[in-house]
């Protein structure tokens, strides 16, 4: 008997049934996490006070619509990448293209008043850093959950999966953060939200594959 035969015998004896991976269950977990974060924001009164007035404005529809689309896309890409033989590369490129289009679409909803202000005034770096930091903090629980899911699943391209998980966590966090963020200028949103999302995605790409073994 070869060592491989012995291994097969060992693995197949006393075989216990396993609970199959269920993507819907995993998505439900992420939705529950997002809902919990949303609940905390509402409970602490952190939602922007004029939300009722601005919810149907073009820039709010652009902001929330683009982020909802990106969050849905990246979550799907991340989930699909967690089992063989899926590769998330095409999906990630598609998400990147969608993000670029969404940013370009921001030009259409930029108000004349915003266009007339100076660049520094529009970017408002102090608020911007706060926004990017808040997105990062809001993304952490979801990134941790996706990290656990990734370790339980079988991503055969762990670095790509980690990046997809990071983008999913970050875009979901950015979507939730739109309820709090008082800024309406698309340039501000494009710059600082992108910075927050990029930071989380890179952190996930670096952290999640560490010590991962298929």
């Amino acid at each position: 008997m070869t060592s491989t035969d012995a291994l097969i015998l060992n693995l197949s004896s006393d075989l216990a049934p396993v609970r199959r991976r269920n993507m819907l269950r995993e998505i439900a977990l992420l939705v529950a996490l997002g809902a919990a974060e949303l609940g905390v924001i509402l409970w602490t009164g952190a939602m922007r006070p004029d939300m009722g007035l601005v919810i149907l404005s073009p820039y709010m529809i652009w902001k929330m619509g683009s982020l909802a689309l990106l969050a849905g896309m990246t979550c799907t890409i991340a989930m699909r990448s967690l089992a063989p033989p899926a590769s998330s590369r095409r999906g990630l490129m598609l998400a990147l293209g969608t993000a670029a289009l969404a940013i370009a679409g921001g030009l259409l909803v930029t108000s004349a008043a915003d266009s007339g202000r100076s660049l520094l005034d529009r970017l408002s770096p102090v608020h911007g850093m706060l926004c990017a930091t808040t997105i990062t903090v809001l993304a952490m629980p979801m990134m941790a959950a996706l990290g656990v899911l990734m370790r339980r699943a079988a991503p055969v391209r762990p670095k790509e999966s980690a990046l997809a998980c990071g983008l999913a966590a970050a875009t979901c966090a950015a979507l939730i953060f739109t309820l709090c963020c008082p800024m309406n200028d698309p340039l501000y949103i494009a710059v600082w939200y992108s910075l927050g999302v990029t930071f989380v995605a890179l952190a996930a790409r670096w952290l999640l594959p560490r010590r991962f073994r298929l």
Partner: protein
Amino acid sequence: MVANPIFRLPLGRRALQRSRASSASAGGQDAWGALMTAAQEGHGGAYRRLLTEMSNWLISYFRRRLPAGDVDDAVQETLLAVHRRRHTYDPRLPLAPWLAGIARRKWIDQLRNLTQRPLEELLADIPVADHETAVTSASVLARLLDELRPTQAQAITLVKLQGYSIEDAARETGLSLSAVKMNIHRGLARLTVMLEKSDDID
């Protein structure tokens, strides 16, 4: 003997699509898939049969991709990964692409392990007894070497695939011993990065 679709499959994207299509036309279930589904429910006999057939395929897969001395390790590592991740197999899909994905990952891991071993250890286990077998095997790996610098490809071919000693390879190439070692080390590292980035290598 269970009809085994994967023996006929090269592992490129087209092949995987063909496999998906043929599986869909067969109702989304293949013979290996049925065995794995039974295994997920705790059927040890079906699992043993599946792993035995998988190991035969894996031996053939890794012989074309790794130096002879690393094939057994890679097969066993892949079987362990299949065992640990068997809950991720979706019975609605064919098993062949699922296994191929795991095998590809283990191929990359095995190549990376080669680069991470200390050079002396790396070289100590290099020579192979049967030169003819070694030359005709690892054909996929040999083809990939074309993508490397000629000196790296030559060093890996001579030492890892054809079983030359490091001294013989140095004499053959006209390089110093340390240059041959470095070319092997850097070539394997570059190969690993290339494989990580590529989607399909048959």
